[in-house]
């Protein structure tokens, strides 16, 4: 039994009287897509922030490749190999896709405090950047303005930036959001190939994508994990059906 790449142990977080995360434990094994689903307001974003960085849990710890990263900043976790994409694209809108990916490459290389060499001529960084762009299929638009890209292209760019980080694990926050059927299918296929490189913790609402992609699913309701298992386990889990899928059946 391999060791988990990403492990979350007993994470709890309260905001005043509201318990946003209640003793959450889950892990991410090599080569898998582990989907995190749950109704709106279940506390998914709070949980993700505690895993990816930016919010400190009241209790519990987060481990990346066996190393305790709970106290580390977002930047430090990224340097350690935790790569993240955002639900609402977090891109530098005034940069080209190439510049955005180069930003990732620069961050990963740790060479931010280099003052004199023109970065856009750095062969090593450029190669990594172009590779990432090619993998998501954006090399044609590399010199456009990010603000002018379509929604789907920006989602692709998000993934490309995540790729430049030499990631050990991906956290993807609703990558399918706003994509049409065609785009979702392409992204699903892409993620399928990606998971071999680094496992993916996937937060998603698009249930078709989840059932097509996930190796395991965890269900988060009111801050608590109520079930973890394979696609079939979850599809047939009575509590999950009522709490989440039940609402969809009724709708």
């Amino acid at each position: 039994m391999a060791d988990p790449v990403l492990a979350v142990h007993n994470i709890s977080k309260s905001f005043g009287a509201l318990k946003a995360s209640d003793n959450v434990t889950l892990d991410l094994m090599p080569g898998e897509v582990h989907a995190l689903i749950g109704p709106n307001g279940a506390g998914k974003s709070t949980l993700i922030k505690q895993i990816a960085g930016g919010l400190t849990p009241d209790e519990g710890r987060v481990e990346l490749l066996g190393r305790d990263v709970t106290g580390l900043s977002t930047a430090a976790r990224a340097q350690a190999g935790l790569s993240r994409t955002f639900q609402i694209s977090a891109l530098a809108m005034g940069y080209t896709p190439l510049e955005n990916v180069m930003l990732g490459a620069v961050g990963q290389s740790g060479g931010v405090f280099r003052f004199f060499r023109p970065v856009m001529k750095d062969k090593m960084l450029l190669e990594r950047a172009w590779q990432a762009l090619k993998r998501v299929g954006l090399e044609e638009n590399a010199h456009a303005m990010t603000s002018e890209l379509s929604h789907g292209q920006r989602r692709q760019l998000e993934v490309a930036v995540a790729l430049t980080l030499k990631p050990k694990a991906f956290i993807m926050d609703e990558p399918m959001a706003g994509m049409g059927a065609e785009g979702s299918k392409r992204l699903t296929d892409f993620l399928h190939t990606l998971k071999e490189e680094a496992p993916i913790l996937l937060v998603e609402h698009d249930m078709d994508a989840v059932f097509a992609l996930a190796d395991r699913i965890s269900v988060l309701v009111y801050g608590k994990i109520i079930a973890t298992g394979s696609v079939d386990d979850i599809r047939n889990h009575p509590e999950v059906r009522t709490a989440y899928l039940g609402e969809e059946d009724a709708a």
Partner: protein
Amino acid sequence: MIRERYINAVILALMVIIPIAALWMDEPFTITLATKAVILALAAVGLNLALGQGGLVSFGHAAYFGVGGYAMGILASHAQNYTPLMEVPFLIEGTNQMPVIWLVAVVASALLALVIGALSLRTSGVYFIMVTLAFGQMLYYFAISWPAYGGEDGLSIYVRNEFPGLNTLVPIQFFGLCFAVLCVVLFMVHRLNQSPFGLALMGAHQNEERARTVGINVTRLRLVAFVISGAITGLAGALFADLNRFVSPVMFDWHTSGQIMIFIILGGVARLCGPLAGASLYIILEHYLGGLSEYWQIYLGLILLFVVLFAKGGIVGGLARKEVRHG
């Protein structure tokens, strides 16, 4: 729409041609005005790094301008009085040599920027603006109440400091020196903008969260930018003190901070030569409008309002072909 490179070349060319023409027409006052424009442009180039590239709205950059100026004032006044600054624990005498003065000015302003930056960067947004403003004023009030170097009345320096190989009292030579300094700094800033540091800084300005999630320590990045920015403005302060042969607490005042910002906005935020265009325009307005009316600042205010509301790109932005781009 014109390529920014050509606009920059024209601006630089004009800044040199005008004083040379003035020399030829025997108008030394114009040379002095041009020198003033160059020095103020340098101060704004410093701020532009933090403000334009970094997005750090520092409303207290006059603090560094003042420190640079007083570095010159203190060192030169001790030199002209033949009294040392300090005897214990080691001897520090005054100096009349510009290179030494500049070094002290740069180091002192960089250190101050480090302290103020470290404290201020704990905040963001409006807090940051107010805090930098407050620290600037703190130095202003301190300079007023410290009598040793003139207090409110300021300090006059009777000789212009020396630079090896030049007669700095000759207006065109002093102009040439200042312009050379400006060009060297511009070149450095240009390289900085093209470097990984510049990419990261402007990237963090556009989307801070993105920068963090690619592993960039944004606070440290900004602090370094802030320190470099303060050092450049400090150097300008030392030059300004030499131009006027006078330093006063006004150099620390927030009006001065505001003026430096005005140069940037008039010329074009984050544009390499924007500060040059803006400072030059300001000097022209001050001289000609000021000659027409004592209340010329009303017009300055209205022009500034117009630019902020309707012509955000400033002079360079209005003429240039593209948005501010990296690389």
